[in-house]
């Protein structure tokens, strides 16, 4: 009795704590329920860096963070996954196009010098380049895939040839010397990107412009090894170069391109090339619809189960229902405490774990009925019902845990959510189905008005009489 009383106190304390937790800490909803975009970025090795270590991945993640912050999305979540992936979650983003564009490029910016004696060649290449570009525009309207591909290949070859005409400065002037980058509109409706160097970058820029001033050779602004613009430096800068650390990238950008580039440059360049290998977007209303219908369906199913338990198992059914409600509250509180993000499969896992909890009670009550039919007293029947059903309950829970562990170890995001909620749920149900139901059950049969075997097993007296007669 003493043990039971302390168990009841424990259950009450847990229950109050659970309700307090549920009231204060909300369970965060996954993107599939609240709407938003999730992008999985694969970090690719290069010829120099063949193995992606944790350090490289962290470096990439930092740059990605910088760029995501530049997008101005509320509460973004950026995590590394496995050895070479980064997952970016953008709540509330219905169309991830801008995010994809900004996150996809490496954004390696470099200011290079045109090699001496290449002026004529450069001019020729620029002419053929603009011809190819015009042709590309025409082709896109005709949607002839083969021709588009062929033209694109020629464009790439042209890019490469132009890049060969430029060389890096002794200390390459790259994006890492940037302090700020901002898209600004020009007079003729195009956009430029204004950049500001830090002190070292400003000095390098001054030296480069000093070297090129008045020579007719251009300073090449390269983004990911492609020439964006090639302004020349006037002879008036021959003495000191362009000082002050400011420069403009003129590339006939659209407003969007200029802003995207600004975000990329501000966030820094990626040390490794990346590819977006997975995008999942759920519109906000769509997510709300599916959460509502799934939660209603789940609650509807549970109410049916609760009714079934009382209808079939009578008094123990009521006890089981109380235990199930306690179970649901405790599990929900556990989700809140552990910061489990609730996804649609997560809800499914939670509902299934309730199924497991019901099973444990069914096992116990069936066993109790059997013992009663064998003619045992109520107290002994209840006791052996719990005692004998325990090994089945343990086995079933352990096998479920094994399956959950396998899912958690290997699964992707959504699958993990399911495994986590199911495993947590079965853990709690081990406690509620066995300890809670047991305590309540013994408490009930200690009250004389409830100590009627018929409340536990309908038609028991008839059954016992019949077997009596049969004997």
């Amino acid at each position, binding site marked *: 009795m003493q043990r039971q009383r302390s168990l009841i106190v424990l259950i009450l304390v847990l229950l109050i704590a659970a309700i307090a937790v549920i009231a204060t800490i909300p369970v965060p909803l996954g993107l599939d329920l609240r*709407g938003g*975009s999730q992008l*999985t970025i*694969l970090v690719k090795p290069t010829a120099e860096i063949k193995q992606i270590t944790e350090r490289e991945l962290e470096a990439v993640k930092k740059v990605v963070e910088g760029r995501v912050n530049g997008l101005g999305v509320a509460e973004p979540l950026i995590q590394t996954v496995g050895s070479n992936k980064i997952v970016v979650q953008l709540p509330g983003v219905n*169309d*991830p*196009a801008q995010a*994809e*564009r900004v996150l*996809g490029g490496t954004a390696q910016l470099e200011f290079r010098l045109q090699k001496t004696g290449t002026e004529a060649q450069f001019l020729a290449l620029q002419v053929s380049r603009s011809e190819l570009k015009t042709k590309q525009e025409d082709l896109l309207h005709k*949607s002839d895939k083969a021709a588009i591909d062929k033209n694109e290949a020629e464009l790439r070859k042209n890019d490469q040839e132009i890049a060969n005409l430029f060389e890096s400065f002794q200390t390459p002037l790259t994006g890492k010397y940037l302090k700020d980058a901002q898209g600004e509109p020009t007079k003729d409706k195009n956009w430029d990107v204004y950049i500001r160097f830090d002190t070292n970058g400003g000095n390098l820029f001054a030296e480069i412009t000093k070297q090129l001033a008045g020579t007719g050779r251009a300073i090449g602004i390269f983004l990911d090894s492609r020439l964006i613009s090639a302004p020349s430096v006037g002879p008036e800068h021959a003495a000191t170069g362009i000082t002050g650390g400011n420069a403009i990238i003129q590339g006939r950008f659209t407003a969007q391109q200029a802003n995207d580039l600004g975000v990329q440059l501000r966030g820094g360049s990626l040390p490794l090339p990346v590819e*977006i*290998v*997975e*995008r*999942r*977007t*759920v*519109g906000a*209303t*769509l997510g709300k619809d*599916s959460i509502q*219908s*799934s939660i209603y*369906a*789940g609650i509807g*199913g*549970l109410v*049916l*189960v609760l009714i*079934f338990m009382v209808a079939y198992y009578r008094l123990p059914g009521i006890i089981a229902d109380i235990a199930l409600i306690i179970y649901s509250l405790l599990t929900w509180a556990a989700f809140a405490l552990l910061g489990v993000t609730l996804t*649609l*499969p997560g809800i*499914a896992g939670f509902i*299934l774990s309730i*199924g497991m909890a*019901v*099973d444990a009670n*069914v*096992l116990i009550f*069936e066993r109790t009925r059997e013992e009663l039919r064998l003619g045992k007293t109520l107290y002994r029947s209840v006791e052996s019902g719990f*005692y*004998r059903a325990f*090994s*089945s309950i343990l*086995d*079933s829970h352990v096998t*479920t845990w*094994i*399956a959950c*562990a*396998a*899912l958690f170890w*290997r*699964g*992707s995001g*959504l699958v993990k959510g*399911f*495994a986590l909620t*199911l495993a947590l749920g079965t853990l709690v149900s081990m406690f509620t189905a066995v300890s809670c139901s047991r305590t309540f059950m013994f408490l009930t049969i200690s009250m004389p008005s409830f100590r009627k075997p018929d409340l536990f097993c309908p038609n028991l007296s008839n059954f016992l009489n019949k077997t009596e007669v049969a004997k």
Partner: protein
Amino acid sequence: MRLSISKSRNFWWTLSAAIILSGMISMLISWQTPDIHAPLRLGLDFVGGTRLQLVRDCTKPHNCDKPIDINIAREVAKAQGLGDSSIQVISENGSDNGLLIRCKDLNVDERTRLQSALTEKIGAFDPQKNQIDSVGPTLGRELFTSGILALVVAFACIVVYLSFRFQLDYAVFAIVAIFHDLLITLGIFSIFGLLFRIEIDSLFIVALLTVTGFSVTDTVVIYDRIREVLSRHPGQPISQVVDDAVNQTLTRSINTTLTVLLTLFSIFFFGGETLRTFSLALIIGFTMGAYSSIFIASTLLSWWRERTELSMVEPLDIPASSQDG
């Protein structure tokens, strides 16, 4: 009601074999079908590609006056070099204002181009109702292999656990029962893939693992009882023991399966679209799990013990006290 399953076991074995066989035939047919090329119709998660679900914004004036013409959508896709994509008009709130497009993996520019071309020809879409999924082919393969790996590892762990808790032959037949349930579930989904174009995704693998867990649970409960009856009546013929054990646990098997199916059916009929295939897989798998634990796992065990016990004089002696704790 009393089932004498040991007598009718040949019937149950034939029934199961027939269902499994038809599933396998369907898998073979799927394999030969050019647009599937696998035993089951694999979804986006495993083969990679882009899936766009767009719904027109009907709050804008005259946006939804005309129903969506699927041929216009097809022409738009063809003009973008996506002639081989599958396009469906889906209904949203009773009117055909949604569009579902499955095609190869598109990058951001290709996708934006397709979306703006569709907007131009068909009408403005509501971004709040968008669903855009896009999986690269390499990631798809990765998801598939890791899913299969999870399944295999879970299997191995369950065998080890069961042979530790029971005996090796119990564990082996429990696994046979799991295979039975999984094969039937796979077979039925292969048929669904052929008939109703239902695709399997990562959640399907989750469903298979959950089915595994529940199937083992059902079998373990009966095995537990067989062990108990055996220890109480060591002299009884094994087929009698198995029949008794199955009948004593029958109400439990039915009630548990019933309660789980209640919630699953409710999710299936009223839950979100995303969970429909998942709950269907669980409904089939759990029903099979209950069926196989009663009619397959236990009858196989009694058949096996009958054969081996002919050469064994002593019945297996398992102390009852050590199993209940």
